[in-house]
């Protein structure tokens, strides 16, 4: 019996190019046995949603450090819902102040990983969340 591998889209929206975090997380998820698609830099919310649909992913991980998350992240969630992917787990990593988290969660984000989070926490969260959903 083969277990279906979890598919994750790692996305880097906005103009910022600091991709250390996105790449380290992508690599860690891969090492943990997940299938990871990395969008590359400067993807619009539309491009990210299109990639999520085309790749039929279980989770989308958004890396954002520039402070533009309140504009960009809710739009990605909205586009995912509009295309029938409301069940895709959306997680966000980066410089996200505490006070912005409730609004992001309300917009559809399952969890926010702030600076200092370990890749193990992220892996466990995705496994737990995607499994519950399945």
């Amino acid at each position: 019996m083969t277990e279906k591998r979890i598919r994750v889209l790692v996305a880097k929206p906005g103009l910022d190019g600091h991709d250390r975090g996105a790449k380290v997380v992508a690599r860690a998820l891969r090492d943990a046995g997940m299938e990871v698609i990395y969008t590359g830099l400067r993807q619009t919310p539309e491009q990210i949603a299109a990639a999520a649909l085309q790749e039929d992913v279980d989770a989308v991980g958004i890396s954002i450090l520039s402070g533009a998350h309140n504009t960009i992240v809710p739009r990605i969630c909205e586009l995912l819902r509009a295309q029938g992917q409301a069940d895709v787990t959306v997680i966000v990593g980066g410089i996200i102040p505490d006070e912005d988290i409730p609004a992001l969660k309300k917009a559809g984000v399952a969890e926010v990983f702030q600076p200092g989070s370990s890749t193990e926490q992220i892996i466990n969260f995705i496994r737990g969340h995607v499994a519950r959903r399945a």
Partner: protein
Amino acid sequence: MLGPWLLKAPERMERFTTVSGVPVERLYTPADLTDFDYARDLGDPGEFPFTRGIHRTMYRGKLWTMRQFSGFGSPEDTNRRLHFLLAQGQTGLSIAFDLPTLMGYDSDHPLAEGEVGKCGVAVSSLEDMETLLAGVPLERVTTSMTINSPAAMIWAMYLVAAEKSGADWKKISGTLQNDILKEYIAQKEYIFPPQPSLRLVVDSIVFSAREVPRWNPISISGYHIREAGSTAAQELAFTLGDGIEYVEAVRAAGLAVDEFAPRLSFFFNAHNDLFEEVAKYRAARKVWARVMRERFQAANPLSWRCRFHAQTAGCSLTAQQPVNNVARTAIQALAAVLGGTQSLHTNSLDEAWALPTERAARLALRTQQVIAHESGVTEFADPLGGSYFVERLTLEMERACWSYFEKIDALGGMVAAIEQGYPQREIHEAAYAYQKAVERKEKIIVGVNEFVSSEAHPIEILTIDEAVARRQREKLAEMKKKRDSAQVERTLEALSSAAATDQNLMPFLIECVRAYATLGEMCDVLRRVFGTYQEPAFR
């Protein structure tokens, strides 16, 4: 001999390493410096190979420039912060631009949405630049500008603003970061492909040598390479490797090495590992001196000197227990000073969360002032020179650097190495290894993977209102109504034609700026001529 002792009192770890993962022995002795020659390996300060510093008297003569990087919101907001910092005793300005500006988009571009004024100040036109610099005495204050892909355009704005304020180009001084190669390697703020980007860098270096002789047209930067996760040796080698590529490109454009090399400047990270950092700065000076004298046959001693700015490591700051960052920054700043830096930025305690508040920025500046005036480390040159450990580490750092140069040369130079993804891969491997070491607790980060505390540590955070973006868009629309649009079109057309030849583009950009063409308009012209760059897929 140590055996029984170790049985009684075992060491804390089996293997000790620097923050870069380089093994460190228990003790260093003269046996670690067998083939060591004072004149060859060190020399006195101010003498080849400058290992001990580029000036004879070092900080006894003049302290480093305390240059706090700042920029946020609108040009008006940042102008107020610049005046505040000057009033606090800061001795040079350093401007941070927002992401749309860094990427060559105006504040009204659709991709600028949500990003205007967030990571720095928004500057879309000469009008914004004039507002930003209002009341700053440009012939007396030196200004550093952290801008890369559109460095030539932003510099053109600065030059025209200076001219309009009555400042003489022959007298003004400052620094453009203008280091595009490290963008492909690490920070990824590129617009055009490497070759035309390199041409813009060369054009500004050549223009500077002829027209703005006191300007530093490039700050060849390892800072971002280190922030992307490199080791100290990689930071050193890729930065100086970029420097070699620039020198070759400017020589190919017809300038003799001594005509421009004295104005090349560098920018390094100041990370947590104090001795490793000091060794890195000392090795940087030694290697660059040899590269310039031997590889490029520079005859002017000023061409041999590696002058550098340092900034404490943003990536070392923790979001948890942010006040702890004051201690980290102080140690890192001390490393830069013990390593002989020419100028220094100290990060603020709140920067793992946001751009610094005024209070946090002042504390960061005060940290430098305490080191400068209270610690006593400034009263003699190269205080760590002669330490068995530091000298050995400096030699190892130097060896690692030469060995990276061999690999880069074998790949066909830095541009070719970048196109093959070589430095990018090396850095990613190091970043991943470090993350794993932290997660295995082989490396301790106070407040993150050890000494964690659940109590909240509230700090004040600077937020940038979306109203800034709206005001910037309105001002831009107003300005476009006022300017002579036929003149804008003529100058942009001339820029486009010149871009297709090999003429120096600086005079053309300056004409565009004088006509109030915007940053986005100038960059769009060049996007059409040069094309844009996409990085190869991450496997």
